[in-house]
């Protein structure tokens, strides 16, 4: 059994809730939303959308212009539509429908159809339930009409036809055995006709549903197309279709407002687990998984801490999700105690993907994510991740980016990106400060080293920050002297060979970040190669090879 709730003139009834004083006055609703700035002249041309019963008595009908309507009734009230009031009306209607059955359709503004199959039988309960629905809607100051029938479209037709059936008033129940008798005299205008179709039926002399039903369905379809078949079925009361059910938006969140303050991690994790138990159960019942978790901690003093956790492999596993939150909270320090917790899961459908035969998949991305979070907590985010060189020629300038377990590794198409351009060296971070004796310094060391040779690309290389092109400058001045011996630190000893100097500078346009350096590659007597750097008169060992 299906029940249809129909609120006639929904735009008008919605406005009457806001302006109850106008309920018994001649009022029309114009086809224009409120707060729309239309000139007085243009407003007169607006069409009438809905008319109150009092206005109908003056011969005002739908489709007239505002000026025509006012000509018939000089104290007629012209109102604009209120989308907000109409939305409130629809929500009220759906709320009431939800009280009777979980399966209902929001058919159009002011009409909804309820599937009462399994809840009530038409022969036994139709009138009783209709009255209950009517009372429920009337409580909200609306004047509904209720139709009951064995199919949705017939129920909707019954709701609209109440005023045409003697004795029905506001509730009409159409049983299968009475269907033909009730439908036949009803005007054809009760069907949802297009203006063209309405004119055509008028031309054919079709006045009521009985006359329409007596036509051959096949002939009608042949002449007017498939949509006429729907009208014919509705006129016969035999239309069958599925309802487009309204499903409320599910919320996968939980909040705990604490009467006591939490100062340690353990009880916080315990409460989070409780919230997760509920959220995960809701997710599982809807065949969903959590893609992200949003955690909000309300702190004493009005502060808040908020963080969103991305779950690499979306799931609804409470242990995994709790573990992820616990790892994060291990290193979390709040300035004040926690007084409230809100946890929200952003749901998604469980992923189904085919693994790439040649790519290295991760067995358990969630576990990996947890491990990565642990390592990051140990080392710090600036010491863990994927290195990415900055677009500058300043040596050892890079940033650490987060590693994405879900991201498939890629191989660059350009093979030259995988060629080591120079013998790789190992860096000292931070670089080691040393004292260096250079050629020409008064130390007594003889210059027993080879003459300085230039690298092929010797010269100054400008910084390309901001992706600017390289700036070549003349070779380093000849007065620069080669280092002879390292006098301090772990690198103490004689230098037996040198290459350099290689001068570089950058960011010359800003004094604060301007840099200039002189590099020397030196062969130490211990057999190692070091990269010495002279900056602002100080020497540093930067790398070893």
């Amino acid at each position, binding site marked *: 059994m299906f029940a249809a709730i129909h609120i006639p003139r929904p735009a008008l009834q919605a406005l009457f809730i806001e302006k109850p004083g106008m309920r018994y006055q001649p009022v029309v609703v114009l086809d224009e939303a409120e707060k729309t700035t239309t000139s007085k002249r243009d407003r007169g041309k607006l069409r009438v959308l809905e008319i109150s019963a009092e206005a109908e008595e003056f011969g005002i009908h739908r489709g007239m212009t505002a000026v025509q309507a006012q000509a018939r009734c000089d104290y007629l009230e012209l109102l604009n539509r209120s989308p907000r009031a109409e939305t409130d009306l629809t929500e009220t209607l759906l709320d009431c429908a939800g009280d009777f059955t979980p399966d209902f359709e929001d058919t159009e503004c002011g009409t909804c159809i309820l599937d009462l199959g399994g809840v009530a039988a038409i022969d036994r309960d139709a009138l009783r339930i209709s009255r209950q629905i009517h009372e429920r809607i009337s409580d909200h100051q609306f004047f509904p009409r209720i139709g009951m029938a064995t199919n949705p479209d017939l129920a909707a037709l019954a709701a609209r036809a109440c005023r045409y059936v003697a004795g029905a008033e506001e509730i009409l129940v159409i049983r299968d055995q009475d269907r033909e008798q009730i439908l036949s005299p009803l005007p054809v205008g009760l069907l949802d006709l297009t203006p063209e179709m309405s004119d055509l039926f008028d031309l054919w002399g079709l006045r009521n549903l009985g006359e329409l039903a007596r036509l051959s369905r096949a002939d009608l379809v042949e002449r007017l197309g498939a949509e006429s078949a729907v009208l014919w079925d509705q006129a016969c009361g035999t239309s069958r279709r599925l309802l487009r059910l309204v499903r409320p938006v599910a919320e996968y969140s939980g909040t705990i407002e604490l009467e006591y303050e939490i100062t340690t991690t353990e009880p916080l994790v315990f409460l989070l687990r409780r919230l997760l138990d509920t959220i995960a159960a809701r997710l599982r019942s809807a065949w969903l998984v959590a893609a992200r978790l949003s955690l909000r901690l309300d702190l004493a003093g009005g502060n808040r801490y908020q963080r969103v956790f991305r779950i690499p492999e979306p799931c609804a596993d409470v242990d995994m999700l709790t573990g992820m939150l616990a790892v994060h909270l291990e290193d979390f320090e709040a300035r004040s105690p926690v007084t409230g917790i809100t946890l929200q899961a952003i749901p998604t459908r469980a992923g189904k993907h085919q693994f790439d035969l040649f790519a290295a998949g991760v067995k358990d991305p969630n576990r990996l994510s947890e491990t990565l979070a642990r390592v990051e907590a140990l080392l710090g985010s600036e010491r863990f991740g994927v290195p990415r060189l900055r*677009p500058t020629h300043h040596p050892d300038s890079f940033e650490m980016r987060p590693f994405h377990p879900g991201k498939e590794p*890629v191989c660059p198409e350009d093979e030259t990106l995988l060629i080591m351009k120079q013998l790789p060296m190992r*860096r000292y971070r931070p670089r080691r400060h040393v004292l260096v004796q250079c050629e020409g310094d008064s130390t007594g060391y003889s210059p027993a080293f080879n003459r300085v040779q230039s690298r092929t690309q010797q010269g100054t290389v400008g910084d390309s920050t901001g992706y600017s092109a390289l700036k070549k400058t003349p070779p380093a001045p000849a007065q620069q002297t080669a280092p002879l011996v390292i006098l301090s630190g772990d690198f103490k000893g004689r230098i037996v060979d040198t290459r350099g100097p290689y001068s570089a500078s950058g960011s010359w346009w800003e004094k604060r970040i301007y840099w200039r350096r002189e590099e020397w590659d030196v062969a130490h007597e211990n057999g190692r190669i070091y990269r010495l750097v002279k900056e602002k008169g100080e020497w540093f060992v930067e790398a070893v090879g």
Partner: protein
Amino acid sequence: MNQESQSHPALAELRQVLKEKFATAHRDYTPRETIRCGVDWIDQAGLEKGSLCEISARESSPAGGAVILGRILQHIIRERQRLVLIDGADAFDPAILPAFGAVIPAESQDAVPQGCDLDGSLIWARCRGVAEAVKVADMMLRDGNLPRTVIDLQNNDLKEIRSIPASSWLRLRSLTEDSGVNCLILTPAPAINCAAMRFEITGRYTLDDLECPEWIWAEKNTGKTGHCQRRLKSGGKSGLLMAG
């Protein structure tokens, strides 16, 4: 690797006697699947999956280890694999490969450096000592999701490496065997007794090598296979398979 037959006849005879006397301790050794790491001479020796290998650079320049690391990275990126680099002294230079450069839009082709998006290929853990590196390695090997790990301790002090208890290395080895993760440890000198395989780098570099093309110094960076041990879980006991 069946190198038992190549050893001295007397040694083979002694092994045979021991095998008969302690049969349970000498179960047949079935070699595991081998994987490639991108360094030819190591691949020829056969790197077993789920093994802990030590590459020491006692006779090599520090750059030797860096060259090995560079070759492994090239191989990993080409094969679209993932690598964990646990850097004991924070000595790795990302400028080793242009691929780590910033990704620059196509319209700015004249600008350098230009790289590619390697966010899914490498994780670099910049540790502040051997103890921290071992701790990170423990976590990553226990996780077992990323099948290749390199622990680079070549710039760490040998004393510091040797101060790590043998049980810690043994635990790492056990984890590699359980999880099937391949773990290479680069050390300045042999220091990990329980390593399943040990390699020695012999390449020494001079200033002239700095400007040579890659193939010249890569060729110089040859090495030799030290020793191999049976895996711990092959019969419950560890034993020497081949000594060299």
